[in-house]
């Protein structure tokens, strides 16, 4: 049937509908497991308030992890890479034009000079 046609990549295949069926079965299983959990949860009561070892809860804005704090380890590990790459994005138009003309010169040499291979 055309509707459940599989995407052929030439080497393997991919059928999203079979994947979706498996996904839905997994969701139903997870739901059943969830149903067997504790049922005494009451939204908005004392039990839903955060417990921070008896300390007062900070302001909402202070506990949210902001975007700038994420992946610090990744960017720090690649510090050398970023120290070279970021300054190239100078925001200066003449720099942009130089890169453009530089790439053109390299490609011109490659094409007129007989190629890469």
């Amino acid at each position, binding site marked *: 049937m055309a509707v459940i046609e599989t995407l052929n990549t030439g080497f393997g295949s991919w059928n999203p509908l079979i994947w979706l069926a498996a996904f839905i079965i997994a969701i139903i299983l997870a739901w059943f497991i969830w149903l067997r959990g504790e049922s005494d949860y009451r939204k908005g009561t004392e039990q839903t308030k955060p417990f921070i070892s008896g300390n007062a809860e900070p302001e909402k804005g202070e506990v949210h992890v902001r*975007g700038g704090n994420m992946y610090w380890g990744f960017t720090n590990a690649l510090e050398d890479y970023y120290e070279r790459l970021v300054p190239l994005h100078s925001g200066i138009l003449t720099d942009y034009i130089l890169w453009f003309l530089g790439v*053109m010169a390299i490609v011109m040499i490659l094409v*007129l000079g007989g190629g890469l291979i």
Partner: protein
Amino acid sequence: MITGWIMENLPALLLAVPMLGAILTPLVGKVSEKGRNAWVLLVSLAALCVAALLTNEVLSSGTVIYTFGAGTPASAIPADSGGLPFRIIFTVDAMSVFMAISASIVGFAVTLFSIAGDSKMSGKDSFYALLLLMQVGILGMVCTGDMFNFFVFLEINSLAGAALVASRVDKGYAVEAGLKYAVLSTLGGLLVLFAVGLFYGQYDALNMAVIADSMQFGVLDKIALVLLLVALAMKSGAVPMHFWTPDAYSMAPSSVTAFLVVASQASLYGVFRVVFTLYNVTLDYATIGWIIIILGVLSMFIGVTMAIPQKDVKRLMAYHAVSQTGYMLLGVGVGLAVLGNAAMMDAFGMTAMEGGLFHIINHAMYKGLLFLTAGAIFYQAGTRNLNKLGGLGHEMKWTMVFFIIGALAIAGIPPFNGFASKLMIYESVFMFSPILSIIAMVVSILTLASFVKVFHSMFMGPKLPEYEGVREVPRYMLAGMGILALLVILFGVFPQQVVDFLITPAATALVDQGSYIAAVLGGGA
């Protein structure tokens, strides 16, 4: 009678509808703002309908030729042309309609979104006129069969785009971004014009089929190839000529940014059209193929690694747009590199090309969607700064769902459309060079990591006091995002249908230079 006339003039109507719409928009706006909004939506919908009809016509009956000013437009060399295809000819093949339908869908979605999303802006009459003019430029670029005409539409696309980038005067930053885009686009346009001049000087022709048929691949042709290739690659945002992209994409209104993605893809179409249709058999496949592959790999990797530390959500998404363009260049570049080897082409080259082309339309949908969600956030929260945003998922549930769909699609997570095209690219490129395929997969993982950060920064966390009054965006904006989200899901769940209907015919049309030439010089397919 009317139906017959419409069907006979579809290529002209594809441009005439948005062009007429653009011209009349300021006049309608003088009468009524609501009337102007309805008019712009109607024009955009009509353009989409024409694109759909033309797509159906081309895919069912073959390449459509339309000669402007001729007694019989369907013939490339009508009797009153003196036996030469000197008139402006639109050569609309499967590749053209593939791009046209993609642009028209995104065009309609962004227009719908902008009705409410840009309602707080002044100067909306000219804004919508420029938006429709940019659509004219994009559609003209992908449909024309004439090199000079291609340059004209490239300029219309670029100038309308630059003006739109500068339309939100935000302490001068938007104007600066628009100026950068305009200067670089003009420089690129001049080089394209110079290349067109080289063709005209050598072959006395501007028609692509005539030039392709006469192509000698001498020194001047090689110079023209480099000028066209590099100028159009710059316009499509390929690294290391991508620097304008984050500046322009981040400062433009989000509806414009979503459409700029398609405008850049029209230049990518130009790269592919030049390489496959103008030069094709005369090319050194390995050299040009590897140049495109290297540009693709650089774009993928540098784009995504520059995206990760960004704090402005639209700037971050702009770097991802650069990164995703790399996948398209990689897929089609691999196809080009093995074009001369029939065995390799059958084994994986064609799949790589189809994957690259499939990624174009997928990217137009999910990246358009992501930029619109960023616009929805800016509309309500008034900032794009990820260090300031947070907790918006409590009130903006629909926007959050649309963002999740777009983010999973761009990261190549099943069952969304980005996964299908990336899978085709991974597997076919692996046969060509495993390391390139591995780089592509690593880039996808980094893309997912980056969008997890954006998702957390914008939607997760407790409700923040500064966003106390924030509510979901108006219905028009949700409808614009909803159309694209629906297509992201449908293209992901039924990928083979899309490949069979749109992608394979487009890839075949691109590779088959002989048919393109015969369609014009033989008087029509």
